[in-house]
């Protein structure tokens, strides 16, 4: 399995588990695509979390304000009708759990990785770009007709040189 396929599958499983456990919702499927070059314009809520180690990158979750409020309502079992601190905090924690779970899956293949504290942005007509040149793996989940978009980019750091913890003579399980 390629690293790309591994990440896509891990995102799908992680989203399904987090939504079912913390939000009481079933969120299946997840349409995969790759994003290169200029990022799309965003309107709504975007949450980022950094991954660091021998491999480094960023994970993100983006959605509309309506969907962000719904995430908060279902996670905290309260009514949320406008994007406030509780809503931003709920989306940040959702990012922490989803990307954290993907990170744990990846550690089995790539070795120990660290996770940053999430950062959440709420606004209109903005673009978010990673300073790295790696393409983004994008998985879109439809939820009540609106997209919840999970993105991840990951690349080996200079010092790693694809330093996967394989036994000598064994085949790399990830065709990078």
């Amino acid at each position: 399995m390629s690293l790309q396929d591994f990440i896509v599958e891990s995102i799908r499983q992680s989203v399904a588990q987090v939504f079912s456990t913390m939000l009481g919702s079933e969120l299946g499927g997840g349409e995969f695509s790759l994003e290169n070059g200029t990022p799309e314009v965003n309107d709504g809520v975007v949450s980022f979390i950094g991954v660091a180690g021998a491999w480094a990158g960023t994970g993100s979750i983006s959605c509309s304000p309506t969907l962000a409020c719904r995430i908060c309502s279902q996670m905290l079992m309260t009514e949320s009708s406008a994007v406030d601190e509780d809503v931003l905090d709920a989306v940040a924690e959702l990012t922490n759990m989803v990307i954290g779970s993907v990170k744990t899956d990846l550690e089995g293949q790539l070795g120990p990785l660290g996770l940053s504290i999430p950062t959440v942005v709420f606004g209109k007509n903005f673009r978010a770009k990673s300073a790295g040149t790696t393409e983004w793996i994008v998985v879109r989940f439809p939820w009540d007709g609106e997209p919840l978009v999970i993105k991840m980019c990951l690349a080996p750091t200079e010092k790693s040189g694809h330093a996967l913890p394989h036994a000598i003579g064994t085949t790399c399980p990830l065709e990078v």
Partner: protein
Amino acid sequence: MDSDVLVVDDSAAIRKILQRVLRQTGMSIRSIHEAGDGQEALEQLRNQPGIQLVLTDINMPKMDGLQLLAAVKSSSDWHHIPVVMITTEGGESKVGEAVKLGAAGYVRKPFTADQIKEKLAGILEPVLPI
């Protein structure tokens, strides 16, 4: 006897969820205190001598959960307090470090109320009535 519990997480959302879950466990809880990082947690422990259980995240600003755990376990006043790690960190290195430092248990996010209840029941029975 009713007990005091300290919930430590930089996410207010998770602190709220844990408050709700703890109330659902059936434990005799007098009050649930909150802290947003390890430093705030130590302050709470100093100010609230009745705290009998700490639930903490690992990844937090200022002082993380493992540093908090080390501080609690090396203190003559608090070393007896069970500390349960509740975190997205599932890597063996973090789990191993927490166990080595004396964590009473480990629950991975996302969690269900039943998972929390089950973990606490195993750890707290004689300490807290469940």
